[in-house]
């Protein structure tokens, strides 16, 4: 009897968990759709800015700009921004990003560089506190990164870089490639990779249309305005990618949890039936034995 009660208790608990994980999966699906829409909405802007930079850079020739060149006097100090989620239950999402960030941090410090750490999301803040690594700044952006806020932060990073406080600004985040593929990425935000390197690395066709543009102001002036915009767009894209990846990984994790709960429930029902049958058989045997003894 005690065993049956125990199994029944577990069965109720498993069913409750299954209900919770199923709900979380549905919420994550809804949030994923919204996050994906906002990430997709950003893409045309990002692509256009990149095309413009290439067009203008092709016309400007050799470019010298504080956001492209390494600082004249290197402070031997870099800024590492780690983007994670505020909540858990999203599979390997936070773990993968944090492992990559820790690896990056340890490599830089082992090479004798000073690393200033900024965390975005509660999970990163908690992780580095546990690792006894002090984060200079901790921020929370919520589920949907807002462009104005991201823009303000990117401007601060640009200012700090041009003032020479850091010689590099890197972002560790989960890059969204497709619904079935996300991977941790260390993005070098500043200094911007030289444009010729970028086009070689990406093996893209030259984007210059060959048209002779009338530039207003000059190509150099336009580029000076375009480059900070590129940095802001890159950072916003990284935030959006992180938001989409978090929701998709939570969706997958919750789906797996629901399936597991279903399997566990099925096996518990079997155990319960077996135990009940055993109990009935035992009781019958007892009645029959009792009756036989009376004869």
């Amino acid at each position, binding site marked *: 009897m005690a065993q049956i009660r125990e199994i029944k208790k577990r069965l109720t608990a498993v069913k409750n968990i299954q209900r919770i994980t199923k709900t979380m999966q549905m919420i994550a699906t809804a949030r994923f759709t919204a996050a994906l829409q906002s990430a997709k909405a950003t893409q045309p*802007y990002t692509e256009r800015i990149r095309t413009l930079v290439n067009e203008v850079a092709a016309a400007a020739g050799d470019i010298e700009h504080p956001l492209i060149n390494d600082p004249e006097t290197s402070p031997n100090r870099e800024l590492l921004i780690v983007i994670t989620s505020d909540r858990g239950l999203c599979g390997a999402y936070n773990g993968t990003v944090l492992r990559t960030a820790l690896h990056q941090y340890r490599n830089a410090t082992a090479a004798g560089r000073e690393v200033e750490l900024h965390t975005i999301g509660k999970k990163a803040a908690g992780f580095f506190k546990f690792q006894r690594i002090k984060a200079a700044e901790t921020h929370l952006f919520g589920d949907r990164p807002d462009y104005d806020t991201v823009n303000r932060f990117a401007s601060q990073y640009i200012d700090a870089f041009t003032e020479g406080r850091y010689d590099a600004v890197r972002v560790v985040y989960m890059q969204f490639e497709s619904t079935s593929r996300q991977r941790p990425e260390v993005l070098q935000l500043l200094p911007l990779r030289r444009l010729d390197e970028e086009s070689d690395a990406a093996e893209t066709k030259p984007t210059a249309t060959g048209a002779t543009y009338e530039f*207003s102001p000059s190509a150099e002036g336009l580029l000076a305005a*375009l480059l900070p915009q590129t940095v802001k767009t890159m950072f916003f894209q990284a935030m959006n990618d992180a938001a989409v990846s978090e929701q998709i990984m939570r969706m997958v994790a919750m789906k797996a949890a629901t399936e597991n709960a279903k399997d566990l429930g099925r096996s518990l029902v079997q155990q319960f039936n077996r135990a009940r049958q055993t109990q009935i058989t035992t009781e019958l045997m007892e009645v029959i034995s009792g009756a036989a003894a009376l004869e």
Partner: protein
Amino acid sequence: MAETFHCSIVTPTGPLFDGDAIYASFPAWDGQYGMMVGKSPLLTRLGTGSLRIDTPEGTSRWFLLDGGFAQADKGQLVLLTDSAMAAEDVSYEQAEAELADVADRVSKPGENQEQVCRDQARAYAKRSLARSSS
């Protein structure tokens, strides 16, 4: 019928306008520019002000633009901006309130005057757009 070109307003949060136009007048950093079919390729920085798009249907649509870049090429005009707003969403009262707020900040010590000037230009453009569209 007048010849048309493709016009789009692209912002980081998505496209605000994407359609054909017969004429567009947009605020560049050094004044108002106009575009019709056949305009030579142009790349310019945008300023703060109103954008007017005349559609082939004979209507005009108005928007508020605040900085960005314009690219005119191959029979299309692309306006890339951080912040754009359709005239229908601009309120006169709100513009007035913004102007009053900026006027207070002008004389405040420690204010970033460059930012104040930008906010003032934006509030003026907003008010003028609200006035003309009402």
